[in-house]
């Protein structure tokens, strides 16, 4: 990549941060150049973010329809999957999946709510809401 070809396509997702990239200057030497973003990067980041948001919205619909518990929604909101949430909360995966059932989630003991809240970075009371 030549120094003048370093992409400066402002990547909104970087929120004004710039990235250091290596590029070849006119003297043939590589040097560090600040880039404001590359469209390709923005495309794939946006794709990943939107995928997780879509999962969260689908989970939200299921929660409102009484088919799932808010825990599933919060899991996707925190960009996690079952494997990671289970590890972060220190539970078996099947238990996490079981807690996706609304009737099981409704009588979840306080200490488990505490663990989920800590794993997700939420307050325990926020676990019930799907805003």
């Amino acid at each position, binding site marked *: *990549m030549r120094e003048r070809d370093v992409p400066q396509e402002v990547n909104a*997702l*970087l*929120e004004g*941060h*710039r*990235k*250091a*990239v*290596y*590029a*070849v200057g006119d003297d*043939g*030497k*590589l*040097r*560090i150049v*600040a880039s404001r973003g*590359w*469209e*390709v*990067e923005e*495309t*794939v*980041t*946006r*794709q*990943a*973010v939107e*995928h997780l948001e879509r999962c969260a919205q689908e989970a939200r619909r299921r929660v409102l329809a009484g088919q799932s518990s808010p825990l599933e929604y919060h899991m996707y909101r925190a*960009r*996690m*999957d079952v*494997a*990671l949430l289970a*590890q*972060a909360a220190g539970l078996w995966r099947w238990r996490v999946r079981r807690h996706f059932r609304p009737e099981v989630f409704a009588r979840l003991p306080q200490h488990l709510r505490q663990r989920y809240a800590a*794993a997700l*970075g939420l307050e325990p009371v926020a676990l019930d809401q799907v805003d």
Partner: protein
Amino acid sequence: MSSLLRHEGMALSEAMAFGLSSALAFAYLPFVRLNGLPLIAYRMPPGAIISGLNRGLHLGARFETFRSRQAGMERLDALLDAGKLVGLQTSIYWLPYIPRALRFHFNAHNLLVYGREGDEYLVSDPVAETVVRCARSDLERARFAKGVLAPKGRLYYLTRPPAVADWGKLGRGALTRTARIMLHTPLPLIGVRGIRWLARSVERLPLDDAGDAARLYIGHIVRMQEEIGTGGAGFRFMYASFLQELAAASGYAALDGLAGRLVMIGDRWQDFALAAARMIKHRAPLEPPKLAERLRELALEEKGFFRDLDEARRAWPH
């Protein structure tokens, strides 16, 4: 890493640190899952960079992990109070100063802490251009995040000033190791053969569900390549920069030509990313075999490149 060394009074560029520690690599690890997608790495894990340099420069690097969060934070405070610069492995998700869109549960992020003011740590992070501040509770959460490659509070620091280096000797050793990793790792998932395995998995992507899953997979490859740090093509450029610097430091000019070739390979990686992004954005028809073809060409080019690198290393006059 470069800043760690500068703190100990040794000027070594990031590219030199990267190259001398033989950090360039390729690995396709389908059994390590990140949100259901395979881990694809374009370099060695960050710890390897430090231990790689440690080997040549005798830095007395120490690594510590912790079972308890409290012990991990107390140890960090004690090291900072003793005037140490401390490197940390963290999750990137829990760091509040990172742009929201870049915060995924990726646990191999590295940053440097060089001070503390009350409950705030002064952090130098490759993602942020300037020094940032990070609250204690956030840093603790980031250090003790769970999941794949969980950091377990891992921290590292240097205990000895670096020895004066013989660039020729260090450089030769580093080139040997990199060529070995890329060409002769017994596992087919590592090195040039790993690129081919990745190509095969891309080729076999199912196209039902209108290609959504395939697009996610392809996007994931590009994200692992470009977004993490300076990115995959970026690491090729960084290594090229190392070859140039090594050529200048040791006076072995053959490395300059190789640097130029590696820059061209890096450009081809970027072309691959561009082609993939066009498919993701529906600007081009979704054809995974075409991407697989590009990956195979890259594998071939890298194979030739590392062979020649090894050749040049052997011809290096002592």
